[in-house]
């Protein structure tokens, strides 16, 4: 007997999560432009709706109506597939992230996480790892030198920084001794000093993770794959209209996923950080809001850094990844090992 209700619940949950992610993307495009304007003493989009809030809708319509230009030489099957791969892999990675506690709805217990699996942290890493293919395929199939260089740069960069990213979370895994994101979040309950970044002694790991996360999502100061002053647009130079828009969305979804991963691993996930004498719906709503707020903080950080720092040179990028972050991540593992062995944390 198939339990149809739970299947329906899963589908609804998927719709809600993907909807929230894409909604977050459209809000972020507005936030990014407004904030960049503030940082650079400009005004930013302020014509469509109050404070320009409806700008994403106008942009969406524009993307849909634009003429689609496909290079004559493009290798079509892969050229068409690449934007989809970019978006799918970044949405995939989000599926293991617990965005809220276990709630009760109509007498059913529902975990606010799409995929509660043993090894969920690795799943998120695996999905991000597959994201490289989208960029590489887009770069190669466009048959454009700028695109190809962008794609190759990005694959080298993402593989290099994946190491630092993976090693920086090992400290968290040693402290929590599990790979299940829901359990990692539960362990950080109570006051905010129980969060892994403070209580777990993972401040160094947290900083390394955030830096590597910037590189992994190809954001400034690590946006060499699409460095517009050198490569026109990098791997998506030859993409137009909705296909370009999908790369754009994929980048923002990847940012949200990275932010959510950092929140889950280091900043207590949906934990509020202050034990409140609440239970039931008020607590659950507050917890989901806490999660959204923390992710929002990281999104602000992404934008803030992008419009503040200049871009790295390519050799500096590789030096930072291999000669600074990598040894520091190893040192963090060593340090955490000592702390765990002497039961300090």
């Amino acid at each position: 007997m198939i339990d149809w209700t739970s299947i329906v619940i899963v589908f609804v949950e998927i719709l809600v999560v993907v909807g929230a992610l894409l909604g977050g993307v459209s809000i972020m495009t507005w936030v990014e432009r407004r904030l960049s304007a503030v940082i650079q003493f400009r005004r930013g989009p302020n014509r469509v709706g109050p404070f320009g809030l409806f700008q994403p809708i106008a942009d969406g319509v524009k993307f849909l109506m634009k003429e689609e230009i496909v290079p004559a030489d493009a290798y079509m099957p892969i050229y068409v597939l690449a934007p989809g791969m970019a978006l799918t892999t970044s949405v995939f990675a989000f599926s293991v992230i617990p965005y809220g506690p276990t709630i009760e709805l109509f007498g059913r217990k529902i975990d606010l996480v799409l995929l509660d699996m043993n090894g969920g942290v690795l799943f998120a890493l695996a999905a991000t790892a597959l994201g490289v293919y989208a960029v590489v395929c887009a770069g190669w199939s466009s048959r454009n030198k700028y695109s190809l260089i962008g794609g190759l740069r990005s694959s080298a960069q993402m593989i290099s920084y994946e190491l630092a990213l993976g090693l920086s979370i090992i400290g968290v895994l040693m402290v929590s001794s599990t790979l299940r994101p829901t359990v990692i979040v539960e362990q950080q309950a109570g006051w905010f000093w129980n969060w892994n970044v403070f209580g777990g002694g993972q401040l160094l790991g947290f900083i390394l993770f955030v830096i590597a996360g910037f590189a992994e999502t190809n954001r400034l100061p690590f946006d060499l794959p699409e460095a517009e002053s050198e490569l026109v647009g990098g791997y998506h130079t030859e993409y137009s209209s909705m296909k370009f828009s999908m790369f754009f969305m994929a980048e923002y979804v990847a940012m949200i996923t990275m932010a959510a991963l950092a929140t889950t691993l280091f900043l207590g996930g949906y934990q509020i950080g202050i034990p409140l004498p609440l239970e039931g719906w008020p607590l659950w709503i507050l917890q989901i809001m806490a999660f959204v707020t923390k992710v929002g903080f990281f999104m602000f950080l992404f934008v803030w850094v992008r419009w503040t720092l200049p871009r790295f040179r390519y050799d500096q990028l590789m030096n930072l990844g291999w000669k600074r972050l990598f040894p520091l991540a190893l040192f963090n593992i060593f340090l955490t090992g000592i702390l765990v062995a002497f039961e300090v944390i």
Partner: protein
Amino acid sequence: MELVAFVVLTALALVSGLMVILHRNQVVAALSLAANLVAIAGYYMLLNAQFLALLQVIVYAGAIMVLILFVIMLLNLPEEARKPGTGRVQAGLAIVLAAAFALILGWALIRATDGGGYPAASDTFGTVDSVGQMLFTNFFYAFEAISLLLVVAMIGAVLLAKRSVEP
């Protein structure tokens, strides 16, 4: 549910596997190999070997195949080089080896279905915990030996790369 997943994964694995050997374009072949690796990882997942599945995707599909793709794209072979090999020796050898491989697989299948020899694995044998436990108890020496081997290989690779730059 498991049956549905199995059928989908099998179709993906077969189609992508055939694409690897039949497609003229090396990039497509390499991409199909990556898809094949992911499909096999799905099998591991169905067999409760989650850790193996995730590592397969991260290491093989996420890193090694990307590097291979990298090389193929940089070389960007001209059309003539893309014609399939027609060597008689290769064809004969391929048939013999494929037949041998099929025999071994068939033998394993028969042994597995009649239940003799291969005990069923427990539900938790492939989790991170149990794999880690085994690596650091039963297979500790093998694990350390492999890590030593990898370090040696890495030092060798670095040395070789260095020599070509500084004569």
